[in-house]
């Protein structure tokens, strides 16, 4: 019962803030609502017993990535988007087609009863110890490669964005 209440409230918050993200005219509104969306997703992760991933989502995704977005939005000094620029008929039609396609997919997910795992099975909780054990044995290579990826991203971002030396 409590689980249902928690799930539905977090899910509703997630969907509402995501809708505001794509429909808001001012970019700052979109960014801040996306931060709220990520917090509600972190709540859903905790509901799935994925504690480490929830903490990483809040710290890295909502705390670093979205703050970076906020910096760039404020650096560029974006103003409110013109309403007429946002809605042309072709864009609206394409958006509607995409929406219908994925709602069809949702319907098929809800009516598909062939999967045998409906209830979540009892499993290890996703705390740091259990994930660490996997990360350093089975997923060691992706772990090391991701550190190289982050190095490449750092170097790329700095090289791209630094000012030209006169």
């Amino acid at each position, binding site marked *: 019962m409590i*689980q*249902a209440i928690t*799930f539905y409230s977090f899910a509703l918050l*997630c*969907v509402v803030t*995501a809708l505001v*993200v*794509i429909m808001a005219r001012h*970019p700052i509104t*979109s960014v801040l609502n996306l931060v709220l969306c990520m917090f509600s*997703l972190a709540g*859903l*992760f905790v*509901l799935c*017993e*994925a504690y*480490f*991933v929830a903490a*990483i*989502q809040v710290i*890295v*995704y909502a705390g670093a*990535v979205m703050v970076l*977005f906020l910096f*760039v*939005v404020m650096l*560029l000094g*974006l103003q409110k*988007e013109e309403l007429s*620029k*946002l809605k042309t008929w072709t*864009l609206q039609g*394409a958006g509607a087609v*995409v*929406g219908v396609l*994925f*709602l069809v997919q*949702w319907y098929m*997910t809800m009516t598909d009863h062939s*999967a045998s*795992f*409906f*209830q*979540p*099975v*009892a*499993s*290890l909780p*996703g705390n740091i110890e259990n*994930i660490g054990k*996997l990360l350093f044995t*089975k*997923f060691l290579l*992706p772990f090391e490669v*991701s550190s190289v990826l*982050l190095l490449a*991203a*750092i170097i*790329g*971002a700095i090289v791209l964005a630094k000012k030209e030396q006169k």
Partner: protein
Amino acid sequence: MPITLNHYLTLSAILFTIGMVGIVIRRNILMILLSMEILLNAANLAFVAFSRALGNLDGQVFVFFTITVAAAEVAVGLALVVVIYRSQRITDANDLRSLKW
């Protein structure tokens, strides 16, 4: 009604839809990147839900890597946006028509 895997997958599909519609209807480059973040988060939710349903922690480790890759991609993407804005004052995705300026 207990919360089953289907509930999480439905929410993931709805979020993915919202992200896709956001990419299609938005013109500002930054807002397109923002809608891509919704897409990635929807996929992360699906991973975590399946990880719980299958009793396997591999899904959550994959979410860890997805968040890492998303952070790297956002850093480079935003650096590109800053460079484009600095040289051309363009924020509309439709105005980016040539590779060289």
